[in-house]
């Protein structure tokens, strides 16, 4: 895996100086790329995909070819995507780690920055600071069954990880994807969903919250469908991401199914500014979502104050 692992390890308990940095000491990936972790790299929007009525995916490419070539990230890592003059927000990198042509971010139109992003056209310039945070421990999961449980835009946070496990299919046991959205119109990555449904080597269950004209698939809330599916916890890792209320009931469901805290993972979001563990706002107790997360196991979350 990549350079970001030493962040989690908390190695080298000493303060750096400019002299150290000039001599090549770097502590994190974004610092390695830019020398200034606050300085976004300029990137160009090369493609925009309308995922749902209020979600767009942006494929961006760094203008500096050297930065593009050097890009390496772990599935589950995030990036700061911003527009100069408006601001930056944190989004999961949802393109595959093996994708060398672009980075993909999916953006739900909600606030100031996301609304401005939705106005972008192909060819427009954005600022990107990536990768940031810690990804999922996909290496440690080798040999295990993987169960993805996701709802709505939560799919964006897990997409790179799904891609990784599918690209390294032989390294993992059974792979199951449970994905739900309010309506069929709200399903993201329909191109992926079609692929998952025809593949013979995984099980994909797609559900929508209620009946919808023309929808012949499954109907029901994600936690309910999970209960009906009743996956076995033996040698399985469950990863969930979605709206807070869905996560809450999925976690309860997993517990009922005898999944332990060590087997259960999620990835969190918080209001963030610096993205590098300094500005202070995305903490849950002593952990910063931006650098210690966004990926956490339930075992880690149980240790923290209830400030999700």
């Amino acid at each position: 895996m990549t350079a970001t692992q030493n962040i989690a390890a908390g190695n080298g308990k000493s303060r750096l100086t400019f002299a150290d940095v000039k001599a090549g000491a770097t502590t994190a990936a974004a610092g390695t790329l830019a020398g200034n972790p606050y300085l976004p790299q300029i990137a160009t929007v090369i493609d925009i995909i309308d995922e749902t009525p209020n979600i767009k995916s942006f494929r961006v490419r760094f203008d500096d070819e050297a930065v593009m070539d050097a890009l390496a990230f772990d599935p589950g890592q995030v990036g700061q995507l911003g527009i100069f003059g408006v601001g930056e927000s944190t989004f999961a990198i949802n393109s595959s780690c093996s994708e060398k042509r672009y980075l993909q971010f999916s953006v739900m139109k909600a606030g100031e920055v996301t609304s401005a992003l939705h106005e972008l056209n192909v060819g427009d310039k954005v600022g990107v600071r990536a990768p940031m945070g810690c990804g999922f421990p996909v290496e440690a999961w080798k040999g295990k069954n993987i169960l993805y449980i996701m709802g709505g835009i939560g799919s964006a946070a897990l997409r790179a990880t799904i891609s990784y496990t599918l690209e390294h299919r032989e390294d993992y046991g059974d792979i199951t994807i449970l994905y739900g959205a309010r309506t069929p119109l709200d399903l993201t990555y329909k191109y992926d969903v079609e692929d998952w449904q025809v593949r013979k080597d995984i099980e994909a269950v797609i559900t929508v919250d209620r009946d919808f004209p023309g929808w012949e698939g499954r109907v029901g809330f994600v936690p309910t469908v999970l209960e009906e599916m009743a996956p076995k916890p033996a040698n399985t890792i469950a990863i969930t991401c979605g709206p807070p209320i869905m996560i809450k009931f999925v976690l309860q469901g997993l517990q009922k199914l005898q999944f332990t805290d060590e087997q259960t993972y999620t990835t969190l979001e918080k209001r963030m500014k610096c993205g590098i563990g300094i500005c202070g706002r995305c903490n849950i107790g002593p952990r910063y979502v931006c650098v210690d997360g966004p990926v956490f196991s339930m075992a880690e979350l149980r240790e923290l104050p209830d400030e999700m």
Partner: protein
Amino acid sequence: MKFLAQDQLQAFLGHLAGESRVVAPVKGDDGVVLFRPWSPGTEVELDVLLAKQSAKEFVLRQSETYLRYGYAMEGEAAAQVDDSHEAKVALEDPAERKAAQDAAVTAHAVLVVEPVNDAPAQVIFGLRPCDARGFVQMDNVFGGYGGFYFDPYYNAKREATTLVAVTCRDPRSTCFCTSVQGGPAATEGADVLLTQVEGGFAVEVVTERGETLLASADLADAGQAQVLYAETVKETAEARVDAAFDLEGVREHLRANIEDSGWHDLSMRCISCGTCTYVCPNCYCFNITDEMVEGQGERIRTWDNCFNPSYTLETSGHNPRDIKSNRFRNRFSHKFWYYPEKYDSLLCSGCGRCITHCPTRIDIREVLGVMGSERTAVSATTPATSGGEA
């Protein structure tokens, strides 16, 4: 140990000012003592123990532009940007206007982004040992301690700064530096420590940087009597700082008491003004905003405070610390639990400004005394977290 006579002080500061900017506590026309850029003839105020604010502003600016950006026009269209009266008249002709628009379409706007990092050499003179230590505590956060990120903006200023601290001869009743492993004559963070003695200051060099600073200043050696006097001043001062609470076990107790109703009770009278965070020598949390005027923009970081509900408010309307007691808990826990867990140190140097300046008299010593110690089973019930408290 050297000796700086009182009547040499202006000349000494003038000498320092020849090499770099000098910042010192100065009383303004309004009677408020603040760290301000010093100029020859300005009187340094050392009789008031603490300036109203710490000197952190000179390293971690209250508001700092760190990126500038804008679009520069390149190519044909650049020639079309003509604001003259003749040009405007010409553009009223539809054909002319069409031509100008076509040219604009082929225009090539280039986004230019440049970091701004202005860090003049400076001496902060006359700060107290607690304020000097505040910088050391922030250094961990900004200096990549423990494998985290290195902040080039903070560090550029920090590395260009020399700290000349002054022993607190007469600590206040709100001082509690000795309870947080500091002291009125502590040298952590200081490059030079001055102690007021009869007729002037006993001068101690603490670091190499301090040595360099004093090398060119022509100071006499301190006499035996002055050395002894300085020692007495330090010992007396040390004895005058009251023990406020027992640091032993505070972190563990804060962890154990996280859901304790005491947080609710103690935070009742807090008005979330954030004054404590702004006057604090080591509260460092900041916000980042963009400002753009006529195509030229700046990315700015500004002091922020964790008592403000919007600090953690998410776009969806969800707020992880939506009630006041949780925000209140965050500040004290950050200083004595979260930060210590990450950086093996404390995020408080015991200056007591938060006590002095709190409009509702919230006292950090009381908060730690209650929440940083063992709570009885009766008090350890979880408070109702709804009910209009936010």
